[in-house]
């Protein structure tokens, strides 16, 4: 699991996750993801297009980042999930709690609305 983060124009932060959000991946990324999402108010778009797998432990990682950001007064949205990952997020009800966008454009819109 890899993660990187970069500022985009419009005050948006792009976080890209790459790999498997399984127990190993969640352990790897938990700390940097929490740091990147929860330390200051921001508008964050999380790119899931290179995430090939997610289990409940990985959902926890995503939700806790979103919760951390919400508590700072900002917003976090997800985009680009592969079909099976999307299905897991849907089955877990994540799409009721977070905005899931198709692509970065949609994520930008959701963040600036």
């Amino acid at each position, binding site marked *: 699991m890899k993660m990187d983060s970069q500022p985009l124009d419009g005050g948006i932060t792009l976080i890209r996750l790459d790999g498997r959000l399984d*127990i190993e991946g969640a352990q790897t990324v938990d700390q940097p993801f929490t740091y990147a999402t929860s330390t200051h108010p921001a508008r964050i778009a999380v790119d899931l297009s290179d995430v090939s*797998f997610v289990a409940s432990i990985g959902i*926890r990682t995503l939700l806790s980042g979103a*919760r951390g950001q919400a508590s700072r007064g900002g917003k976090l949205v997800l985009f680009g999930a592969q079909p099976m990952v999307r299905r897991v997020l849907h*089955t877990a*009800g994540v799409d009721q*709690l977070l905005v899931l966008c198709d692509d970065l454009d949609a994520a930008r819109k959701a963040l600036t609305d």
Partner: protein
Amino acid sequence: MHSAHARRSLRLINDSGAISAASAWLRTLGESFELGSELVFRLDLCASELVANIVSYAFEDEAPHTIALDLILEPQSVKLVVADDGREFDPLALPEPVAPATLEEAAVGGLGVHLVRQFADQVSYERASGRNQVTLAWPRPSRPGV
């Protein structure tokens, strides 16, 4: 190339490495038997959740226990049997999780078993001779998937 019938088994001790190993083992078998990426994802997800739960919840003592995984391939079906000798636990008896209304309430748990029930085509549970045995089944993809 592989015959239509095959059975592969793996016995793991209940420590945290078991989760990644079960997953990696199933992905490798899925590839060699050309089960296709969607079914491999489902096997991987269900095994990861079940093994994680066995490691976390099934045992009170600190002694090593065996988690048994059997992948059974038949012409029309793929079955995964996960067994342990921990406390009795029927994943089918667990109530559906209540969908959290807000982010703050979310992730109180109950997601793992829910995912297993949703991503397996059929789930059955048996308790016999002090062992839990969960059997998951899917139709076998008729041709190599992607």
